[in-house]
């Protein structure tokens, strides 16, 4: 039964015009890529959060900062230094370097440390928000692309209708149904992207705030150390 066959989803896709098929392929690709991003982001942010919690626990456990710094020296591979630890390392390294030059005064040391931490923080923020623009653009654009495919398909189906003397519902319906597949695919790509974008951008913001707080706290510790040295010497 060819008629029945042509109304299945595959039949509709196969019978669509080339442009509509292109639109569908594009949307399908967008969906695949956006899901790659979603999963990758989810894994990365989860890892970053776990690392932040464990590092903070370690940091406030009263461990010597020198030891902490040396501990993370040899880390490579799976638990390579990432996230908040990078900020700590940047600040501490700068602090040690400046302190070894005896000429530097305390304010200069603090300024240098803070600058180094700001740079590291900016890098981390960049990492946290990677790919989120892509998700945002998929979320906002793919319904339009789908709609474009639908409009084009309906346009063609009506143009074909103009040559028919008796226009019944049965002559229009397949074309419209075919065209609507494109919109469905656009929504299919867009909805997860919207949800993921909102969730991940909110979580990235929370993480950035936590990093900032940590940087402030750490600079407070360094400040105390610098000034206590100055007073004692």
């Amino acid at each position, binding site marked *: 039964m060819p008629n029945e066959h042509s109304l299945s*989803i595959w039949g509709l896709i196969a019978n669509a015009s080339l442009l509509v098929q292109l639109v569908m392929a594009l949307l399908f690709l967008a969906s695949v890529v956006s*899901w790659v991003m979603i999963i990758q982001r989810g*894994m990365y942010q989860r890892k970053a959060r776990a690392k932040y919690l464990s590092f903070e626990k370690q940091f406030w456990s009263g461990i010597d900062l020198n030891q902490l710094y040396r501990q993370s020296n040899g880390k490579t591979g799976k638990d390579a230094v990432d996230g908040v630890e990078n900020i700590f390392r940047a600040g501490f390294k700068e602090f040690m370097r400046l302190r070894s030059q005896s000429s530097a005064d305390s304010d200069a040391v603090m300024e240098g440390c803070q600058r180094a931490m700001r740079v590291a923080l900016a890098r981390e923020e960049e990492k946290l928000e990677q790919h989120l623009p892509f998700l945002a653009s998929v979320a906002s654009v793919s319904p339009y692309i789908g709609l474009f495919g639908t409009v084009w398909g309906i346009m063609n189906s009506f143009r074909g209708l103009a040559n028919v003397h008796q226009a019944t519902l049965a002559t229009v319906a397949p074309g419209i149904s075919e065209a609507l597949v494109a919109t469905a695919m656009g929504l299919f790509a867009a909805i997860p992207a919207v949800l993921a974008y909102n969730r991940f951008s909110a979580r990235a913001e929370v993480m950035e705030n936590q990093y900032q707080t940590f940087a402030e706290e750490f600079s407070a510790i360094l400040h105390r150390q610098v000034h206590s040295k100055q007073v004692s010497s």
Partner: protein
Amino acid sequence: MKWRSSYTLPTAVSVSMHLALLLVITVGWESTATVEPRVFKPKFVEAKLVELKAQTKEETAPAQNKVIDLTKKRELERQQAEAERKAREQAARKRKQEQERKAKAEAERKRKQKEEAERKRQQELEAKRRAEEAAKQKAEQERRERLERQRLEEEKRKAEEAARQQAEVAAAQTQSYVNMIAARVEQNWSRPPSARRGMTATLLIQLVPTGQVVNVTVIKSSGNAAFDRSAEQAVRRVDRFAELQNMPPKLFEQNFRQLKLEFKPEDLRL
């Protein structure tokens, strides 16, 4: 290297998810079961010709004895006896052969009879079956004819109904058009002072499909020449009944090419 490690798993998961979705769409989207056309096999018994084989025993040839002669007499006797025996034997053999042939012939005859009977039975069965089939076909045909007749009657009835309805509609339409024309004529009519109540003039109006009035004549006078003239004048003043343009052509041809209009104004007070 880092790129690869952090993207392999997401890519694999995403692609497999989409493939699974495609699979679901392909396989499980339309779960409407298609009804397989069932074939009913006609039940019949296959008739077979059974052959009866005549069972005959192969006769074993008698063993030949070797005779050793001792004396001449004995020899002669023996020869005689031998000859006698031979003759006897021959006779016996002949008889036996005869019997066998008879038996064979008998068996053959019986077999033939049986075959004949079988064939007759088959033929009878065949004839019966044919007769049944013919009866069935006849019944079927009769049924079909009856249905056809019913259908035709139904159609005829429907067509009549439709025609009647159409005629009614046409009559109603005609009446409404005529009323409209009369109203238009009346509107354009200027009443002569001599007009009286109950005056009726019949006009013959010749029209073309655009509604244009081609000619007007009074075919039955009201008795008052001024009234007749005024009626004629009114029609001429209307000049064109624009409403007739979108009338179905058939209706126009039937009623309006030559329209007899009774001019009977109702607002006559005198």
